[in-house]
């Protein structure tokens, strides 16, 4: 069986048989796509092209959700308004050589929606930086040449915030080393901030974790089928 098995694995685009150490939960976005495709009749036009992910309208036949392997950063006395600072790291090295990355979406998850009362002041600000070598050595500081990717303020915390990081992830694949990201959430620096005290960060307690959804196109598998289709 080992010869047949290795040939079958190869045809499935796998160099070896995976042997997972833990069986984590299946992200609901993957489960939803899987179920939708399973329930479609094989003759359905909606089934579309197996080399295109209709849900995100991008080319691709492989969707992965990477768990964050980064850690919280506690360096010295945190700035007054800081609620959370975390390094995010997603190990994209598992992508096969012939896979072309077509989309990457960061999801920041909270355990529940939170609606702070108006008296709790201005809300929160979220910043996402590309991590740099300097940031990994010491206290990360925006002026240390870290590139700001996302800056957003929000009052209500929804269960999850989603950001498109396709450009950064493609860059990690082609040019630069993947040193991860730095996520900072602070109390808004508006005039209400002074009244906040530490109360402004309470809604951050519902922070759960982050994950990166990545869509890739296996050129070898999809080129062959496109040729056949032509």
């Amino acid at each position, binding site marked *: 069986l080992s010869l047949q098995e290795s040939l079958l694995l190869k045809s*499935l685009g796998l160099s070896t048989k*995976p042997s997972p150490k833990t069986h984590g939960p299946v*992200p609901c976005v993957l489960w939803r796509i*899987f179920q939708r495709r399973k329930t479609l009749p094989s*003759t359905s036009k909606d089934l579309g092209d197996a080399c295109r992910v209709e849900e995100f309208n991008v080319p691709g*036949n*492989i*969707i992965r959700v990477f768990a964050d392997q980064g850690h919280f950063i506690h360096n010295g006395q945190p700035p007054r308004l800081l609620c959370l600072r975390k390094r995010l790291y997603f190990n994209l090295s598992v992508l096969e050589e012939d896979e072309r990355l077509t989309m990457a979406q960061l999801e920041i998850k909270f355990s529940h929606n939170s609606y702070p009362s108006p008296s709790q002041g201005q809300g929160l600000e979220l910043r996402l930086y590309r991590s740099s070598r300097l940031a990994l050595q010491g206290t990360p500081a925006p002026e240390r040449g870290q590139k700001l990717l996302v800056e957003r303020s929000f009052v209500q915390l929804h269960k999850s915030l989603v950001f498109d990081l396709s450009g950064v992830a493609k860059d990690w694949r082609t040019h630069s080393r993947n040193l991860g990201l730095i996520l900072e959430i602070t109390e808004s620096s508006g005039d209400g901030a002074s009244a906040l005290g530490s109360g402004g960060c309470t809604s951050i307690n519902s922070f759960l974790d982050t994950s990166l959804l990545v869509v890739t196109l296996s050129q070898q598998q999809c080129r062959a089928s496109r040729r056949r289709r032509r």
Partner: protein
Amino acid sequence: SAEPPPVTPSSLCKPRRLYISFSDVGWENWIIAPQGYLANYCLGECPFPLTAELNSTNHAILQTMVHSLDPEGTPQPCCVPVRLSPISILYYDNSDNVVLRHYEDMVVDECGC
């Protein structure tokens, strides 16, 4: 030339059931879903005269005709998949990430000559 033996409907070219069970090959520890799937395969004859429901090409019609005149010289056309559909497989990779992968042409829906 000898009359060809009567072709019973069951021997005509059509999809036959083939269920692939991933647990049979010991893959259940890394494949999350499905547990297996109906791959099917094509089997059966493409006899002269080729009827419409046999999904045949013009060339196959010609070849069956030649085969009926010269069975030793020209074989019958082959019974092959003419419509296939993809499947999706959810699995764990070696880094314990969950992967959803779509594979084209994994299920035989229709056969033809």
